[in-house]
């Protein structure tokens, strides 16, 4: 049985956390996420162009956005809004399809806005498919297998 530590990393809770402070009131920063005319002005790296989009900003509502990359390829991002608490919290699922239309891993994005008296601290939290993988392992009743697996790895790493 060949096991490497790389696989263990995949079963850990992997997540992305980005914090930024914007010199703008919280209400305005929240609108940047929920009003399409604003969103298209900043969403995506420079050089990416939004070619179509849909935003049904309510719990259960679908969002999608197709963008043209500088190399001409088209990337579609899509998901479902889970939670909208104006003006402080936004939770959505987020999937990026590749140029061939194959869906990437499902991720969950949580945006939290803190009012700093005129400024706003934005915290973006994104968790992805390794966590989904672990969750499904749990559902399938394999949690103990995974736990043993991780123990085995830590024992070997020590």
């Amino acid at each position, binding site marked *: 049985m060949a*096991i490497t530590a790389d696989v263990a990393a995949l*079963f850990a809770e992997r997540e992305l956390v980005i914090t*930024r402070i*914007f010199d703008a009131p919280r209400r*305005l920063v929240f609108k940047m996420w929920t009003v399409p005319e604003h969103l298209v002005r900043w969403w995506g790296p*420079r050089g990416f162009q939004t070619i179509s989009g849909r935003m049904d900003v309510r719990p259960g509502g679908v969002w999608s956005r197709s963008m043209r990359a500088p190399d001409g390829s088209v990337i579609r991002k899509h998901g479902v809004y889970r939670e909208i608490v104006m003006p402080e919290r936004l939770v959505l699922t987020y999937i990026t399809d590749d140029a061939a239309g194959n869906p990437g891993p499902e991720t969950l994005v949580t945006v939290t806005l803190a009012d700093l008296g005129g400024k706003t601290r934005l915290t973006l939290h994104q968790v992805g498919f390794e966590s989904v993988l672990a969750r499904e*392992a749990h559902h399938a009743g394999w949690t103990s*297998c995974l736990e043993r697996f991780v123990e085995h790895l830590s024992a070997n790493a020590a």
Partner: protein
Amino acid sequence: MLPDHLSTTYAALADPTRRAILARLAAGEATVNELAEPFPMSLPAVSKHLKVLERAGLITRGRRAQWRPCRIEAERLKDAAQWLDHYRRFWDDSFDRLDAYLGELQSGEQKDGDNS
């Protein structure tokens, strides 16, 4: 953009049964019969999923005998895990633009930003 093999990997990972199979294989090698056991589906259906995983390079299968045990391929999964870096760049770039855009909105017509 994502290399081609990553597209195949993500497509293979998009299916919950295949992710569950991978989670099982993370605990060690298994035969098709063992893998099929927890799923309410036929052996051929499970074999089909295994073929997709194999094509994506996420698993390999032994050549010996009829057992052909399956095992997980860590390297390809590691590549797939690098989506995090991809997203970090996406957000960092986007937030740079958001910062500039907010500045523009507020220095110009503040009301525009507030009323839309």
